[in-house]
């Protein structure tokens, strides 16, 4: 039955173009013949709709593509044109199984230990709430959002565009906490956050623990958040307490954060040392390669996705600059030959939020390749192509992110 598996995975993954995969498909023709001789009829495996895992059972199933219990992507067509992504549509990506839901029952009791400061302390969420509060709109995006477009079959979840959403985070500025504890210790260069997931016996904790280091420049904006979109942060998304680093890729926003340290060096946990590192295809990850920290400028169209009507169409999309405010977004209905500037839609919620955009276009009958290209205020703009890399990280090329729309 090998061939069915290969065909099935090929149908849902652009990696079908991978030559290794293709030869595997050819090679299994013989196996299929042998199976038929024995009287078994190979049946195509039915694509069973996966149900939501218990810890995310409250999410909107129809708005999500469910890959595994820990990986769910927002459907491109469910992104909509609002600035804020509804919580039940937001993607989910957990590196480890979530702790039991009961940890969020009494959120004020959750404790976080803060070290690498002049006066290290353990603080409860209840105490944090009296130290300061801020609300920031920030895009949450997985490092591998866009991985599906890499032709080499990068390992990992084949996210298309929906491993991203823009939400409001409410919590205490990390700087307020650190100031109250006497400031960072001398020589601190990184903020290292550790998640509270439990790790099974028999494994080296460093090999799987979620512990990430970000440069101390993030202290200006980082917060310890207990609310998302004005409601208590669910354990599905990291509650009772999550380290939020606006403008940084999702993995740095440590869920169930139980330990924050100001450190001279980056953690040697695998997720930091060799994971989330950008390198050439075929190379292993290592600490000397760029880490997935600040997000780059990016955009994509959210409607129409497949079909349009001839005449005036409203083309919608979302655009963001990572840690830099956006200057503009251009839209092309001819695959990038000619461009026209789109209009930002809705309020500007700051540099870390995305900007929905819209552009009215007259579409003639036939096939249109609709693409978008964002530019930030520093002049960074999306490239046309992708930067090939082993794990398919950080893809912001405008060409792959376009849509082919048939107009009738």
């Amino acid at each position, binding site marked *: 039955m*090998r061939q069915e598996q*290969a065909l099935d995975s090929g149908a849902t993954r652009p990696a079908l173009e991978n030559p290794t995969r293709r030869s595997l498909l050819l090679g299994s023709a013989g196996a299929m013949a042998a199976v038929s001789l024995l009287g078994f009829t190979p049946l195509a495996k039915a694509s069973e709709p996966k149900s939501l895992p218990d810890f995310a059972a409250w999410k909107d199933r129809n708005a999500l593509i469910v890959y595994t219990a820990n990986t769910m992507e927002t459907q491109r067509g469910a992104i909509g044109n609002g600035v804020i992504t509804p919580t039940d549509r937001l993607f989910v990506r957990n590196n480890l199984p979530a702790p039991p839901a009961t940890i969020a029952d009494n959120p004020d009791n959750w404790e976080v230990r803060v070290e690498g400061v002049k006066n290290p302390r353990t603080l409860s969420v209840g105490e944090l709430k009296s130290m300061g509060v801020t609300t920031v709109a920030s895009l949450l995006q997985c490092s591998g959002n866009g991985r599906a477009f890499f032709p080499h079959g990068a*390992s990992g979840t084949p996210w298309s565009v929906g491993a991203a959403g823009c939400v409001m985070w409410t919590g205490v500025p990390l700087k307020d906490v650190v100031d109250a504890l006497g400031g960072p210790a001398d020589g601190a260069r990184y903020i290292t956050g550790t998640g509270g997931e439990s790790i*099974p016996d*028999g*494994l080296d904790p460093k090999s799987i623990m979620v512990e990430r280091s970000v440069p101390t420049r993030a202290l200006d904006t980082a917060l310890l958040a207990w609310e998302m979109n004005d409601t208590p942060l669910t354990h599905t998304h990291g509650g009772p307490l999550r380290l939020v680093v606006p403008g940084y890729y999702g993995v740095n926003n440590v869920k169930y954060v139980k330990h924050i340290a100001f450190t001279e060096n980056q953690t040697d946990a695998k997720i930091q040392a060799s*994971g989330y590192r950008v390198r050439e295809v075929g190379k292993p990850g290592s600490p000397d390669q760029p880490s997935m920290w600040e997000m780059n400028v990016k955009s994509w169209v959210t409607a129409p996705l497949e079909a349009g009507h001839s005449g005036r169409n409203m083309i919608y999309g979302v655009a963001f600059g990572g840690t830099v405010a956006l200057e503009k977004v251009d839209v092309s209905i001819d695959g990038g030959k000619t461009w026209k500037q789109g209009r930002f839609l809705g309020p500007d919620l700051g540099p870390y939020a995305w900007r929905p955009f819209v552009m009215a276009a007259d579409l003639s009958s036939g096939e249109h390749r609709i693409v978008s290209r964002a530019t930030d205020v520093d002049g960074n703009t999306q490239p046309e192509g992708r930067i090939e890399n082993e794990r398919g990280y950080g893809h912001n090329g405008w060409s792959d992110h376009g849509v082919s729309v048939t107009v009738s």
Partner: protein
Amino acid sequence: MRTTAVLVSIAIMGLSALAHADNTELGKEVFTQVAQPSCTICHALSDAGSAGAIGPDLDELKPSRDQVINAVTQGVGVMPAFETSLSAEQIEALADYILSVTTNAN
């Protein structure tokens, strides 16, 4: 002649089926005992009685043979590479085993 050919091919198929059975037994042993850390710590697989939840549930994921071989050989994400600790034969047996218990045979 034709009868002989049919008999021979049945015999060959029988042998290969036997060899395959041995392979899946070895694969199960690799899954539950030989690999360190054990596959069972991180992966749910009902045939092996494991309920690990760190990595994908293999009954649900139903990985292809090359997915198993690539993941086990090179590692994926937090999953370590077993290239140096398992032989190619052990990794292939493991893939055969996982396929044999996660693929619908009917």
